[in-house]
Every structure is written in structure tokens, then in C-alpha cells.
């Protein structure tokens, strides 16, 4: 398949999945017990103006599918609704918090790729007891929930040693990086351990291949062989796992942001759930799911650039 039609098909599939998930997120309101109006206004009751506003925002006087189309239209125009608790537009709430989550996830992704690939390659090439040790550590890292690591990191490095701040996301620039270091570490451990495991297996398999033997016999430097022959060929499983991991980080951030009291999307979501602020819940879940789906699609597309042997659209 050539690039144009492939991209078109891929993009079409992506749009379809997004359409279905948006419909599911929209449908959530109608799964809730009681009438949508009572559910949104909750125990707060509501003044006639509020009732009118909610009815207008959710188009409650229209038939079901007209409601969905209108809701989707609002979202595409950037109108994510109005938060009853914050008395603010949801899009404003989200845009002021998306930066923190994005920074947290990016920092964690960098840590995961550097540590995961380095440790995995080291374990595979060194073998022996250092391999045993890293495999054991990886197994423990994989079994530890991010919030446990977060609590441990705060106890040791923030409360005990006082090297890092305990809470909050800082005032920007280096200060933010400083505040986000521990959260990003907490978010990375399990995924880095998993990536290390996958890298180790891939590198082990690749370094047993004949082309590597040939390179060794030709007298190429070990570093060159590892970088250009072994790692280059092990990239497919590594990038697959890395991509899936970054997608799951988006959900993992929900937990970590709450441990470290960061003002990101995750803490907004949890607070909104507890306060029954439905417009915010709906919007944040939609943003998380869209980000998750889009990242997965990008990874899928990247395969073809990493390994030209893979034909566009085939999955091997």
C-alpha cells in the first residue's frame, strides 16, 4: 500500500474509534440513575436559571441523537461545557491544567526510554549475575504500584532528606522540573522495568543472529555493532512497548498527580468525581481517551519508519 491511501485509511479508522468513544462518553449521562437533569445538578438542587442552563447545554429538550450531534458540535467548536462547582468554562479549566500533565508524562517518557533501554541492553550484553540482579529488580519494579513508589519517594527524599519539595507543581521553568522529578520517577518505575525486560529479550535474540556474528568476525568495534546492528534491529519491540507505555502513562498520571497534589488533569478528574461535577468528568475522560487513542495510532504509524521492511498497514 502506498503512503497516501494508507494514511487516509488509518485516519478514517482513527476517526471512527474517536466517534464511538465520544458517543460512549456522551452516553454515560444516560447510564446514571435518575433523570440527567437531576444527576447533573445533584443534591445541590438548582435554581430555575441553572435548570435552564443545563437543559440548554445538554440540549435536553431534543431527541437523543440530535442531542449527541449538538453535543459533539459543541465539543468540536471547543465548548466543553460549564462546571457547576468551579463556575467556569470546562475548556478553561482543562487548558490551565493540561500543561502539568503533559510535562509530567513527557518527563516520565524520557526517563522510561533512557533507563529502560540502557538497563535492558546492559543486562542482555553483560549476562551473569548483573543480568540476574537487573531481572529481579525489574520484577519488583513491575509489581510496585505507582502510588506506593510515590509515597516512598516523598517519605525518603522530601520528608526525610529534604532534597525535593513534597507537594505542588512549582512556578514554571526549572522550578517545575524540580517539582516534577519525584512524580515522574514514581510514574516511570513500572514502565521502565517492563521496557527493560522487553529490551533485554530483544537484544538477546538479535545478538545471537548471524549478521552480528559476521560483523564481529569482520572486526568491527563492539560499540558500533551494538548501536548499529543489534539495537537498530531490536527497535521494533522496544518502540511498540514504549508507545503503549506512554499511552498508559496518561491514565497513570491520574494516580500520581493525586499523590503529589499536582494541579493536572488527573487531580481535576478525581476531585470532579468526588464533587459530582459531571461536565468536568465527561470532558476530562474524553481528553484522556482521545490522547490515548491518538498516541496509539502514532506509534502504529511510526513502525513503518523504523523498519522499512514492514509494509504499510501490515502488522507483523
Amino acid at each position, binding site marked *: 500500500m502506498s503512503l497516501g491511501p494508507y494514511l487516509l485509511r488509518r485516519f478514517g479508522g482513527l476517526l471512527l474509534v474517536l466517534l464511538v*468513544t465520544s458517543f460512549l462518553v456522551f452516553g454515560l449521562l444516560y447510564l446514571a440513575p435518575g433523570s440527567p437533569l437531576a444527576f447533573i445538578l445533584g443534591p445541590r438542587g438548582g435554581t430555575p436559571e441553572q435548570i435552564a442552563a443545563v437543559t440548554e447545554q445538554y440540549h435536553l429538550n431534543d431527541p437523543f441523537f440530535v442531542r449527541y450531534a449538538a453535543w459533539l458540535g459543541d465539543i468540536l467548536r471547543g465548548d466543553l461545557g460549564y462546571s457547576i462547582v468551579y463556575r467556569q468554562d470546562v475548556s478553561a479549566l482543562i487548558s490551565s491544567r493540561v500543561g502539568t500533565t503533559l510535562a509530567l508524562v513527557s518527563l516520565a517518557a524520557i526517563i522510561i526510554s533512557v533507563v529502560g533501554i540502557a538497563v535492558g541492553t546492559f543486562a542482555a550484553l553483560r549476562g551473569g549475575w548483573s543480568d540476574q540482579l537487573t531481572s529481579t529488580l525489574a*520484577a519488583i519494579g513491575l*509489581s510496585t*504500584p505507582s*502510588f*506506593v513508589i510515590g509515597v516512598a519517594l516523598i517519605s525518603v527524599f522530601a*520528608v526525610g532528606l529534604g532534597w525535593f519539595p513534597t507537594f505542588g507543581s512549582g512556578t514554571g521553568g526549572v522550578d517545575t522540573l524540580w517539582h516534577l522529578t519525584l512524580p515522574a520517577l514514581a510514574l516511570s518505575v513500572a514502565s521502565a522495568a517492563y521496557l527493560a525486560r522487553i529490551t533485554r529479550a530483544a537484544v538477546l535474540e538479535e545478538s545471537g543472529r548471524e549478521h552480528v556474528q559476521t560483523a564481529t568476525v569482520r572486526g568491527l568495534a563492539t560499540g558500533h555493532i551494538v548501536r548499529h546492528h543489534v539495537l537498530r534491529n531490536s527497535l521494533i519491540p522496544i518502540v511498540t512497548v514504549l508507545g503503549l507505555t506512554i*499511552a498508559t502513562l496518561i491514565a497513570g498520571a491520574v494516580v500520581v498527580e493525586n499523590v503529589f497534589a499536582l494541579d493536572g488533569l488527573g487531580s481535576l478528574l*478525581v476531585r470532579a468525581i468526588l464533587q459530582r461535577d459531571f461536565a468536568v468528568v465527561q470532558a476530562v475522560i474524553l481528553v484522556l481517551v482521545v490522547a490515548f487513542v491518538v498516541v496509539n495510532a502514532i506509534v502504529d504509524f511510526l513502525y513503518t519508519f523504523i523498519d522499512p521492511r514492514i509494509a504499510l498497514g501490515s502488522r507483523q
Partner: protein
Amino acid sequence: MTIPSTTSLAVADVVRERRVRPGFARTTIERLGTVGCIAAGVLLVIALAATFAPIVAPYDPDFPDLLASLSGPSPAHLLGADALGRDILSRLIWGARITLAGPGLVILIATVVGVLLALLAAWRGGRVDTAISWLLDVLFAVPGIVFGLIAVAIWGPSLATVVGGLAIAYVPYVARVVRGAALRERNMPYVSAAWLQGHSGTGITFTQILPNVQPIVVAQAVSSLGFAVIDLAAVSFLGLGVQPPTADLGLMVKSGFDSVLRGQPIEAIAAGSLIVVIVWCVTIIGDRLTSSARSIR
């Protein structure tokens, strides 16, 4: 009419003969290996202690001994007491109950639903298969823990809501693997043989294909259990799952976190480590079962 009946008799004999195999305990031990057996042993001890919590736990998990509040280990309280003076060891034992039973229920529901969907997709093929695979793709498009959060957002925070939400999240993980395995079995000659003998599709699926994919089902269920433990504990930690004062390991990490800031880390360390030990054991067993299920074919 004698010929068909003898044929089916012979087949029945073969089927009966295949069922004579080394005992369940012995094959399981062989599949697990040394490390896997140790992990299974540790998990068994934790599970037994949790099951018999009313007998094993030294104190009532909810009894506040305010004089012992935030005290360290002592002969009276082996692991000390939490901020409200409740015995930490007793709360760990009671907490392990929910931490094992909740995710167990999640995986049980997800496995039953996932296996039924997978077998249906594999047997019917065609449009049914396309529709089911597409449904699984959509479910995959939502990260697991988000299902738990969505359920809580609609039906309010409680263990039951989170278990329901997470069960849906784990269906595609079971279904996709089992569908692949069942498709492979479906194309085997023994399935066509059974079909030619006039067995029904449902009969073949449940008496022939299901027993043959069973090792993969079990391996996938156990592997997913580890992730379910983490997800459920995380949701409780966020305050959206199990509600206080019920003893739960995720909640204990949270309340222990407040005690850490007041200089007493034991509760957080104990509850956090118990979660890690449980997940580690489950993951090891899952890994062993997965690799032995792969090597069978």
C-alpha cells in the same frame, strides 16, 4: 447402523484415555518451577491468613486503642498502631481479604465474559467475529483504570462499582488472547472430525476447544490478576473505591502516608510492601503458567 456407533465408541474411548494423565497437583508443580512454587506458597499463606482473618488477627481491625496511637512495634501491637490506635497487623490481615477478593472477582467476571466472547467469535467467525473484534478494539481504546473511574463517576464511590468497571476493562485482555488460541484450535483436524460426527457447535466449543485452550485462559487470568490488584488498590488510594473505616491495603497506604508526615512510616511501609509481595507472587505464577502454556503447543 452398527458402524457409526462403534466409531463413536472408539472415539469416546480415546477421549476417556486422554483424560488419564498425571495428577493435577503434580502437573501444576512442574509448570510452576521452584520460584513459582515459592511464590504460590507465599500467596497461599497470605490467602489463608486473609480467609481466616477473624481467627488469625490478634485484634478487631476497627477497635481504636487511642493510647497506642502511632506507636511503633511492641509486644502488644507487633507492627504498632495507626493514627486512630488500630492494630496495624490486624488491619493488614483484614485488608488482604479485600485486596485479594476484589481483584479476584474482577478477573473472574472478565474471564467468563471474555472467554464466552472469544469462543463465540472463533466458532462463528465471519460477521460475528468482526463485530466482537471491533468491540474489543473499542474497549482497548480506553485505559483500564479509567473504566473504574467512569463507573465511580456514575454510581458513586464503592467497592462494587469499581469491581464492575474494572471487570469490563479486563474483558478485552482475556478475550483477545483466548480468541487467537481458539481460532488455532478451531482449524485443527479433531474439530472437523467432531463436526463430521454430528456434534453441535456449542458441544464442540465447550467439550473440545475450551479444554484445549484452558491453560491459556488460566495463564492470562492469573497474569491479569496482578494488574487488577494494582488498579483496585490505586482506586482505593484515591478515595474512590473501598470506603473507610473498612481495612484495605490501598486505603492503608493513604492513611499511612499522613502518618509518614507525622514521623511514623510503619503503616505505609507494611501495607505498601504487602501489596508488592502479593502482586509479585501473582506475576511470577502468571509468567510461569504463560510460558508453560506456550510450550505445550
